[in-house]
């Protein structure tokens, strides 16, 4: 076997090692990647940016710990955007693994970056409801019936009846929101919010999903989805749009932008290995033809 032919049978553990190095070293440098928002993400940003102050936004965090690196930056960027625009933010989840993620959003993003915002007036945590798409269907007509208690803020604020929360008063159903932003990674997720939430209530929906789910949702854009963040790149594009419009978020809202650097290097490493594999393939083919 010639050297070129050997390139076609590299032990997979070398590939794993190269990927590990390709991801680790760029991550340690902490540099951001220069990302330009794509039209589908820019539309989502513009849709939220155009909402007048006081508009109600429902943010649903429908993902688990495994996709936090992709989905949490999306949720954080949207939450920062909404609160910067003085929109009323209602945070829920229909995944059982959602509540700890909501707590992270509340403590590390909302309360940290917006200490002047008041719980129950500017934002509220309504927690988890079991029932998958059944919950979404029920929220169309009986939002308060589903959320008789909020989920509070951990040790700092105990759960209380939603009848005592000012921003819950005008909510009868999903129709009383001006925008719905589901961030998801599987079932139930953005597709269910479009089918059972947005289509039924007539409220605009724009969301974020993992990269592998994004192509499935392109058919819904632009009529049923105002925009879509797909994967880490989508999150980075939204952060880029946010920091361009509001430079004060330049340091806090760059989690996905920083992670794009190792992703870029990893993609190039994969391309390199594919090229090596094809070199080996053509070398073997040429040798076989010579024989």
């Amino acid at each position, binding site marked *: 076997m010639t050297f070129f032919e050997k390139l076609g049978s590299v032990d997979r553990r070398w590939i794993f090692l190269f990927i590990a190095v390709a991801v680790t070293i760029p991550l340690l440098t902490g540099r951001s990647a220069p990302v330009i928002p794509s039209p589908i993400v820019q539309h989502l940003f513009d849709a939220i940016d155009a909402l007048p102050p006081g508009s109600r936004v429902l943010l649903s965090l429908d993902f688990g710990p495994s996709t936090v690196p992709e989905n949490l930056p999306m949720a954080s960027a949207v939450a920062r955007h909404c609160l910067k625009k003085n929109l009323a933010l209602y945070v829920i989840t229909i995944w059982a693994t959602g509540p700890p993620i909501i707590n992270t959003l509340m403590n590390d993003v909302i309360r940290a970056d917006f200490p002047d915002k008041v719980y129950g007036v500017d934002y509220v945590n309504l927690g988890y409801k079991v029932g998958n798409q059944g919950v979404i269907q029920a929220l169309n007509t009986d939002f308060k019936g589903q959320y008789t208690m909020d989920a509070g803020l951990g040790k700092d604020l105990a759960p209380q009846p939603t009848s005592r929360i000012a921003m819950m008063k*005008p909510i009868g159903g999903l129709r009383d929101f001006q*925008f719905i932003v589901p961030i998801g990674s599987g079932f139930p997720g953005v597709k269910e919010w479009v089918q059972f939430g947005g289509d039924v209530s007539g409220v605009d929906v724009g969301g974020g999903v993992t990269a592998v789910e994004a192509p499935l949702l392109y058919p819904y854009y632009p009529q049923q989805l105002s925009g879509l963040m797909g994967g880490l790149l989508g999150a980075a594009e939204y952060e880029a749009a946010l920091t361009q419009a509001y430079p004060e978020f330049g340091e806090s809202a760059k989690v996905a932008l920083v992670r794009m650097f190792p992703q870029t290097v990893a993609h190039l490493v994969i391309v390199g290995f594919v090229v090596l594999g094809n070199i080996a393939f053509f070398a073997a083919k040429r040798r076989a033809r010579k024989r």
Partner: protein
Amino acid sequence: MRASKQRRPAGVELMLLSLAWILAAATAFAQTPPAPSQTAAADSTAALVPSDTSTSAPPPAPPANVTASDAPSDGGGVVIVRWELSPDDAAAHLVESYRVLRSENGADFKEVGTVLAGKSSFRDSTSDGVSYQYKVVSKGPGGEGESETSGGMASSGQWFNQERWNLLILMLLVCGAILFSIWRATSGKPTYIRRIAGMDAVTEAVGRATEMGKPVLYIAGIQDMDNVQTVAGLTILGSISKLIAQYETHLLMPTSRSLVMSTARETVKEAYLSAGRPDAYREDSIYYVTDEQFGFVAHVDGVMLRRRPAACFYLGAFFAESLILAETGNSIGAIQIAGTAMPTQLPFFVAACDYTLIGEELFAASAYLSRDEKMLGSLKGQDWGKVIAMLFILLGSIVTTFAQGPGDSGAAHQIAAFLHRLWTGAAVGGG
């Protein structure tokens, strides 16, 4: 038509209010007029924008033309109240919200809901058969304006959801084609079905495991019995486990759901019974692991690396764990046959497995393996469904292309609009 019911302040107050109103109106006309509100998009993004915060703001004009109608195509219990926005809503920003009041006798009105300014409809939950009358009150910082009373309306349930007539037609067409094909298949004429390479390889895969003395690993997805892919995976399991029983190979089947475990045990037990090998059936070869996606795949990976199955079947609904399973199976040199109806996972299976059943092939597999005429006939009916879909796609593409062209294309526009309504008439379904 403006409502005539307004409060009448006395003398001096009336003069001051009139003066304030004239000043406000003059200021509004002197500014650049805002973009016309799109009443068709009544659920617009109007927010709480009290632009005139002065305490002398006049009460907003009441909304007009309040009508109540039974919500169409529902099970009853809902009346839709509609009205024309107050003239002071968009232009003068004197309206903050609308209060909806309801009465059963035309006298005692009680509030049933509030909507933001800019909205012109409200869905009220009611009791069927009871006639209700409604009033809508525009509310602003300067006071309120009450509309006239609407006519009485009682809600009732309908027996057919008219928004879904298009789906009913399509369902009758497709199901009719399938049932007709099943009937035709039982008439004796053999049904031709193209080869499905993955299913042809089942015998080879089980045979290989038997020769190597290694087990066969079967994963029926990670969803529960309410997912049709899981049911499809279990129907194929019935056929494959019969072969496994005949070859006296060992089956390993970790499951991610308890109900799947129970159903799979019954399926495999019956398969061993019909193969004449009930003694070879081992209940513990089918066992529950965990509902958690990555916990399950971690266990399955461990089993693969330790037990080294010679044949791996992944037939059902999978998510992100599909590539982990397939690559691990590849690393142990197993022959892998996968099938799923999750379009996002198909590329991973195609890249890493020896054979992949793509989408509908998963649902056709049990018919293919059994060679039952009725089941093969149903596959033919599916093909007719595809022909119907292709015809509509072709027709829609041609008509939409002409409808977008220059010149007089009125007919093309109308056909395009009809086709659009045909395909998107139902709210649920999307895409």
